[in-house]
Each structure stands twice: as structure tokens, then as C-alpha cells.
């Protein structure tokens, strides 16, 4: 699933991201990394609006990655942040449990058939109608509140990369 409107920045730029982190998939790290992302975006780009968007993207992508990571020794997560001066790109690479892949693919395909606001509202309606099911608001929230488009790439060794690309 590729974003047709904004090509991933990582294809166009020098090989060095602005931020690159590699860490074990532990829930306890998420708050700290999100707040670093807020600080980094606020400091680097000077807008609180972008800092808030970064928080949503980082929180929800890392939550998904941690929740569904396999237990193997090479399941470390990678987070990178890149920019070309017009767009910003957040990328999270993880090694998910194989059973999670098809539902992630389906969820991403589903939300991308609607515009971000409609997809977020549809996710609310689904959550309301299915009180016993898991929330599944996160990806739609990333698109709408984060102001980004999402793509997923399957990489070697069973790893996947979720990329969120939006305007600065």
C-alpha cells in the first residue's frame, strides 16, 4: 500500500534521518519516546501543532508495534523521523507476530477508502457498535489527528515498516 500523493521522503533524501532510535518493544518506553518526539518537532520545526501531531503518530504507531511484536530476540523496534523541508515522515519498523499481519493490512486498506475525518468517525461508530471488541481507533486517529497518510511495507525476515507521511 503506497501513498500516491506524497512519495516517502526516505526515497528522496540523504541516507541520514533526523532521528533514529532502536529499542526493545517495551510499553514502558513509549511515553518517553513520544515526549522526545514532541520536544524534537517543537524545537526543530518551531510549531506546536506539528509537535502535537507527532505525539499522536508516535504513540499510536509504537503502541501497535509493541502490542503485536513477536517474542523473538530480533524483534527490536526502529523509529525514524525525516523531513525534506516540506514534508515530515515517521517510520516504525517492527517484527510482528505473523497472525497480526493480515488484520493490519485489512485495517489499513479499510481506513484508506475514506477521507481521514470520515474514517475516524467510522471507527468511532464501529467502536460504539462493538463494545466488547478492541477499540481499533488508532490507525484512523493517526491519519486524521496526525495529518498524515499511512503506508505499510513488508521487509525481509518478516519485518514490517509503517510509514506516516504528512505536510510539515
Amino acid at each position, binding site marked *: 500500500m503506497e501513498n500516491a500523493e506524497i512519495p516517502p521522503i526516505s526515497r528522496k533524501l540523504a541516507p541520514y534521518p533526523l532521528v533514529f532510535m532502536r529499542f526493545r518493544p517495551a510499553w514502558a518506553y*513509549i511515553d518517553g519516546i513520544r515526549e522526545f518526539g514532541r520536544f524534537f518537532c517543537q524545537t526543530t520545526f518551531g510549531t506546536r501543532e506539528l509537535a*502535537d501531531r507527532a505525539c499522536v503518530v508516535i504513540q499510536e504507531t509504537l503502541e501497535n508495534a509493541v502490542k503485536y511484536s513477536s517474542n523473538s530476540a530480533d524483534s527490536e523496534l526502529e523509529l525514524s523521523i525525516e523531513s525534506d523541508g516540506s514534508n515530515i515522515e515517521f517510520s516504525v519498523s517492527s517484527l510482528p507476530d505473523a497472525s497480526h499481519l493480515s488484520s493490519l493490512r485489512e485495517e489499513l486498506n479499510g481506513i484508506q477508502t475514506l477521507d481521514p475525518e470520515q474514517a475516524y468517525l467510522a471507527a*468511532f*461508530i464501529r*467502536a460504539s457498535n462493538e463494545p466488547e471488541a478492541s477499540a481499533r*481507533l*488508532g490507525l484512523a*486517529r493517526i491519519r486524521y489527528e496526525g495529518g498524515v497518510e499511512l503506508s505499510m511495507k513488508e521487509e525481509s525476515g518478516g519485518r514490517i515498516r509503517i510509514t506516516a507521511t504528512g505536510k510539515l
Partner: protein
Amino acid sequence: MSQFTVVQVPKAETIAIQVTAPNQVKLSGTITQKDPATDLAGFFKALHTAALADKLTEVRADVSGLTFVNSSAIRLFVDWATWVKNERGHRYTLRFITSRNVTWQKTSFMALMSLAKEVLAIEHVT
């Protein structure tokens, strides 16, 4: 005696919760636990049940001090709005007090309002 004001407030690490008479609950801090329902779902349900028992016409949920929450926490507000919406007998207005300065509140309560506008009210503070 008011049922609403005697609802037991859960202890949660990153959230401060205050229930005040006759109909207000105030939450501040952040909610980013893996499963916030463990701490909060039962609490919200107890407030809802108490509001019905007290025949309140309005419950004021002041979330303006909640600076960040994850989508699992947003789900809890969806559930609360759904309980009120689906109530067939006495219903109350669930009024969320939100902050214009907190991004997640602007986007998520707009969506929530679309879901259950007949029972919700959104009030903005700075």
C-alpha cells in the same frame, strides 16, 4: 443521598480524578496505559449508573486538563456516550468540558459529537 458523589475514585498513576457535587467529574493528566479500561471503565460505568439513580439531567465531565490520551482511552469516552445514547428510560446530557488548546480534544470530541449528538454537549474553555 447522592449516589454520584460517593462513587469510588480509582487510583491511577498518571491521572488525577475529582468528583464534585452534584454532577461533575474532573480528570487531568495523561492516559497512556496499555489497558486504561482496567482503571477507568468500571469508574465511568459507576458514574453513569449513579447519574441515572440520582435522576441527574446533566453530568459534567471536565477533561480539559487531560493533556494526552491514547486511543484506548478515547474508546472509554465512546463507551460512556454509547451507554447514555442507548438508555431507554431517563437520560441525561453528558457535557464534556474541553480545552481549545489541546489537539486531541478538538478532533476526538468532534467525532464523538457526531456519534451521539442527541445526548452530548461539548463546552470549550481556554
